[in-house]
């Protein structure tokens, strides 16, 4: 107590209290608040595991009826919800369905807003069922999900497998298979072509680092840090949101492969310049750090050394 009494009138005491309070609230909040990951993981465990690879149209129909039809309509014809015209799904193709659902953008919570990437609400098996049901019911003339032996799907994640030792093994095997498939997919890709295509067609919106950027009219281009090869391929095929369609006539399958290899390079590239990469945002973040940390620390040093001098005068 004496220690506090002696110091509580110190000029910096107020700041110390505020900083402590912020730290307590910040740390407390991160522990207590349900994060998206945790919530999704709970949901995910409830889903039944099924890995026989068989397509179950009934399951797909059920998912469609429960999670899609309320906004897109029973016959996928689209309708008006609130102030927004929800688009029809006729002709968008299985690739679009797979892209929107596997990136967690659909089912959407708010039809008025652009949806961010989220942890998907369904397992890939369930999404496959949904896509099969969609193509069966509403026609398959739109772009299709690329075959798995052509474009590697999504990298497996640990929590898709049981948490026991067997699950660990199965996960490692799946991971190995995926890495092999990806290596063989990108083995003959051309870095220069990929870079040029990326910088000419993609970087306008998604930025040089794949960090995304602002678009007109309140929309934005999402970051590509987590996009899987299949999702990248499907996005180019279907042009979700404000993105233009790059079908196989515009950007050939081979060029798509080059772009995917380049994006993957960007995703995996370590930061050579130091552990703090500032989110690869670029010059704005650098200037911000230069002022808030660089010059502020130097001025703090100046205050310190002149204050020392003063007390000896």
């Amino acid at each position, binding site marked *: 107590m004496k220690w506090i009494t002696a110091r509580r009138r110190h000029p910096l005491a107020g700041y110390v209290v505020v900083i402590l309070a912020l730290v307590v609230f910040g740390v407390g909040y991160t522990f207590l608040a349900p994060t998206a990951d945790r919530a999704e993981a709970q949901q995910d465990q409830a889903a039944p595991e099924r890995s026989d690879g068989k397509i179950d149209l009934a399951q797909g129909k059920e998912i469609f009826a429960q999670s899609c039809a309320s906004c897109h309509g029973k016959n996928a014809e689209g309708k008006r919800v609130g102030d927004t015209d929800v688009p029809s799904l006729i002709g968008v193709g299985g690739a679009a369905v797979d892209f929107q659902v596997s990136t967690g953008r659909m089912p959407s919570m708010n039809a008025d807003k652009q949806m961010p990437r989220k942890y998907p609400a369904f397992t890939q098996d369930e999404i496959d069922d949904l896509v099969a049901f969609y193509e069966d019911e509403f026609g398959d003339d739109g772009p299709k999900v690329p075959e798995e032996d052509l474009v590697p799907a999504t990298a497996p994640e640990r929590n898709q497998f049981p948490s026991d030792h067997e699950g660990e093994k199965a996960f490692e095997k799946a991971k190995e298979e995926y890495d092999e498939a990806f290596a063989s997919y990108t083995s003959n890709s*051309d*870095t*220069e072509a990929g*870079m*040029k295509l990326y*910088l*000419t067609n993609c*970087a*306008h919106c*998604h*930025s*040089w*680092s794949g*960090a*995304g*950027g*602002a*678009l*007109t*009219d*309140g929309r*934005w*281009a999402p970051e590509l840090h987590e996009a899987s090869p299949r999702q990248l391929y499907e996005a180019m095929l279907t042009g979700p949101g404000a993105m233009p369609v790059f079908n196989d006539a515009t950007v050939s399958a081979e060029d798509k492969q080059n772009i995917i290899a380049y994006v993957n*390079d*960007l995703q995996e*590239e370590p*930061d*050579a*310049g*130091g*552990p*703090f*990469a*500032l989110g*690869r*945002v*670029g*010059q*704005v*973040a*650098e*200037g*911000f*750090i*230069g*002022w808030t*940390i*660089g*010059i502020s*620390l*130097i*001025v703090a*040093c*100046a*205050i310190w*050394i*002149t204050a020392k*001098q*003063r007390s000896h*005068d």
Partner: protein
Amino acid sequence: MNANEPPKALRGVGNFIDDRFHLAKMGEKNLRKVFPTHWSFMLGEIALYSFIILLLSGVFLTLWFDPSMEHVTYDGSYQRLNGVGMSRAYESTLHLTFDVRGGLFMRQVHHWAALIFVASLVFHMLRVFFTGAFRKPREINWVIGATIFMLATIEGLFGYSLPDDLPSGMGLRILQGVMMSLPLVGTYVSMFLFGGEFPGDLIIPRLYSLHILVIPAVLLALIAAHFMILWHQKHTQYPGAKETEKKNIGAPMFPAFAVKAGGFFFFTFAIIAGLAAFVQINPIHLFGPFSPTSISAGTQPDWYMGFLEGSLRIFPNWFDVNIAGYAIPTAVLVPGLGIMGLVFTGPMVWPFIEAWITGDRRPHNVADRPRNAPTRTGLGVAAITFYGVLWLAGSNDILSHTFSISLYTTTYIFRVAVLVGPVLAFIIAKRICLGLQRRDRETLEHGYESGTIQQLPSGEFIEVHKESSENMVHVLQSKKPLPRIDVDATDENGVESPAKRSIMGRLREGLAHWYTKDNVSFDGVRPNSGHHLHHDGFEDAAEEHDRSETVRTP
């Protein structure tokens, strides 16, 4: 032997030199030169030290960097870009980054030091501005400083353009666009700089010789001049009991100030090196080489060019006109060249404008406290706000993306803020200054609030005021009545002075009135004398007194 006497051998050499060059006399004078100690007087030193770091790290970079736009195919230890076509400049930068020991570190030191250099120049200029240290006799040194700031910005832009990575080329493209917006001569200027169409293959060698030779040499000369003038005119200082217009109080150059300044160099160096070691800056290997067909979201100039980017982004194209088939792109001309001119030349002419308005031609060696020059302080804060809004507008896409605000909304917000913000900032800053002046007068007259509460015999509680120290009284009394020209004086025959009748005379009179009208007078305030005066009545009387001071009889 006397303990204070140097050894004989040293004495001999010393006497030999001293007999010929009279070094002892010069050393005596200059080593004892006094430097006032306040942290805000160290800001210019940050600029000096980061400039030294820039020179040293820059020399290291020139040993490997090859400013050539010759087309080559990369074949080096950075696997990802193997087989990619690029310019020799970009390739040698990659080589410097990945194959030269310490190369990446030195590149990052150079870049961080550049950001810190310009930031410290701005910080230093603001200190000089707000304390009125640019006034006579220091106007020339202020103009030199403002020129250093301008050259540093241009130097930074050229350095940014050298590695020939994606943002380099985009920065040059904007530079070229601004040049082309010049009526009549724009295309010629562009062709002259680039030696043909954009980008050509000459621009990087040309920028290189400017960046490493011409501009640093001019900067070095200006910094030397800045320093010599400072040495000759002596430093300004804040008011105090002993600090006067005639006498400088502080630490002697040797040993106290030299040790402190030397130590401060290493602080500056440590922080720049720390940033360079831990925080990635300008990762050119991720950007990829420049090609005129490529462009990327989220690419900005370095921070000191941000205000230009911002003014280009928010200025509307409503005023673009065509004259006889020739376009006058005001949407580029005004924000690109107009705003740049305002930011660079505004500070240079300000000392002369202020002297003209106030008619104050006296030399000033004691710095103003910013509150005692409320209009100047208000103008300074307004200028910071104007610059700051433009600067923020330059990052509007990043702000929009990071904080999920619509991009269009940010543009409209900044368009309004750049006009309204400075006005509000001026009014608020000036009111705060005047409030502080009132409090100063209160403190001067009543002493300071001691925090001790006393109960009077009548039961009333009062806070005991204690007498301010002698030094505090001097600080508070340093507030002089604002200098004021008297253009409406009449001569002995009752005729107005000619200066008043001209348009400029009237303008000057109006400006002088605006510049000095709001000010709390300290006239007749005796230090530590007013314990028992009743507050409210006193305030009113003082307000009356102010008005009779400043409003002139017609």
